[in-house]
């Protein structure tokens, strides 16, 4: 299957700086006993396992040759550590859809969790302080794109390409970038963002005025810098990419065991 890339981002942990007193610098803080009962991780096996791997490596338990393609033994090890943490009551809840993560963070049920970019903006737009914390070990990245069915031909195929061309022509990219994602074609998105927004979201510069979300809520004031900084700083610190591993079915089964434990 081939795709044309449209969107990607570097993911990390989100925190409530007002409810956590000390600086957070490592992935291993997710399993810090100080946050017992106040942590969360996402309940999607293919993404969650990678976050777990980042935490395990940060704890010094194991070094993965390839987090995106783990062996059965590595999967067992990773899920074993987390199952133990779960039984010890480390996690308040797990989330499956991004609005659940927003609710958990905004209500203060959880102070540290894996999060996605738009969730951070959603929490901030409610007036709750929330930081997408850059961590020493780096980011986990993912990418998405559009694919065309092999069954298309003629007019339908051309229409599909027209759509892809429009999708990458800038408006969509601008909208996505103002939520914190990166468009696959930043140059076209630049035309749909104000200079201040471009400076804030892409170049990591301090905002000149208020930065608004695509729906109009205020996300950052003048002088604030995007969490993590410029595009090169963030994407340059990516250490693993989401992928479908060879042992996918095994991993899903083990994930079910983790949830049921």
């Amino acid at each position, binding site marked *: 299957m081939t795709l044309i890339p449209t969107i990607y981002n570097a993911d990390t942990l989100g925190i409530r700086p007002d409810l956590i007193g000390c600086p957070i610098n490592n992935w291993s803080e997710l399993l810090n006993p100080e946050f017992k*009962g106040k942590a*969360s991780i996402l*309940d999607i*096996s293919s993404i969650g396992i990678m976050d777990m791997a980042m935490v395990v490596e940060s704890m010094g338990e194991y070094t993965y040759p390839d987090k995106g393609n783990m062996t059965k033994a590595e999967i067992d090890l990773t899920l074993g550590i987390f199952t133990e943490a*779960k039984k010890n009551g480390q*996690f*308040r*809840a*797990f*989330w*499956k859809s991004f609005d659940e993560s927003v*609710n958990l963070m905004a*209500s*203060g*049920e959880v102070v540290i969790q894996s999060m996605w970019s738009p969730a951070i903006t959603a929490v901030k737009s409610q007036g709750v302080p929330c930081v997408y914390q850059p961590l020493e070990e780096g980011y986990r990245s993912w990418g998405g794109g559009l694919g065309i069915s092999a069954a298309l031909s003629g007019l339908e195929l051309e229409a599909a390409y027209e759509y892809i061309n429009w999708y990458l022509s800038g408006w969509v990219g601008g909208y996505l970038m103002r939520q914190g994602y990166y468009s696959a074609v930043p140059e076209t998105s630049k035309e749909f963002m104000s200079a201040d927004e471009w400076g804030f979201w892409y170049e990591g510069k301090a905002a000149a005025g208020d930065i608004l979300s695509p729906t109009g809520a205020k996300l950052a004031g003048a002088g604030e810098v995007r969490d993590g900084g410029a595009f090169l700083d963030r994407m340059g610190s990516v250490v693993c990419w989401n992928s*479908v591993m060879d042992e*996918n*079915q095994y991993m*899903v*089964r083990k*994930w*079910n*065991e983790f*949830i*049921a*434990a």
Partner: protein
Amino acid sequence: MKKLLENRNVTGWLMVSPLAAVLLVFLVMPIVLIVIVSFWRATEFSIIPAFEWDNYAFLFGSPVTYTVFLNTFKYAFITWAFTLVIGFTVAYYLAFHIRSLTWQIALFLLCTIPFWTSNIIRMISWIPFLGRNGIANSTLMSWGVIDEPVEWLLFSDFAVILAFVHLYTLFMVVPIFNTMMRIDKSLIEAARDAGANGAQILWNVIIPLTKPGIMIGTIFVVTLVMGDFITVRFMSGSQSANVGRLISNDIALLQYPSASATAIVLLATVLITIGILLRFVDIRKEL
């Protein structure tokens, strides 16, 4: 032709045929399809027609299955116990302590008002109520009963059972109320004349006569709880699983054959449970 239509058998079959057709197409055929798919093989993104027992072998060989089924039964049993007590009490009050029929109907309708809202909304609205900074904890703290928020109110088994009881008690009230209304009042008078006190009347007269209603309510509640995975997921914060979660996880990852196998096992389990329950009471008397 007229002779044919006058034949009682033919008329009977013709009258039943619309419902039979609907049940055949929308109930029997999908189940047959699920049984067939449960023997197929799957890759990450496609399913391949085959005939192999792998899915069932994995299900019965994995300890997760047993843990999860046990969990499902646990929830069903505890919910059943609570809804029985609450449902019976409410139905008893409605049937025997309210004098006029008008008031009985009015109060009964009052019980059903919560159902005018969606099930999911009623379940989710517990989350802000029971949360760490939610209404329940804030109220308890402002009254000075506790110093710190009570953690186990939400995202725990307590929350799951609470939501289940909240959602499904009415399904126990209705059949029991129905059966109680049919009890001949003169039987109770006779018992009182014979010298029985309130508790004895309850145990020896009312409960045996209400058994069909209790059984119907039980079937409703047990079936609903065993199938409801959304409530378990939201109220436990995805930390508990029941069989429905296993199926929905599989479907989300396009593993249809193993989801089908789990579904068939669940269906068989529920049918067996209901079969056992029906041995205790003859419902046909009620219907």
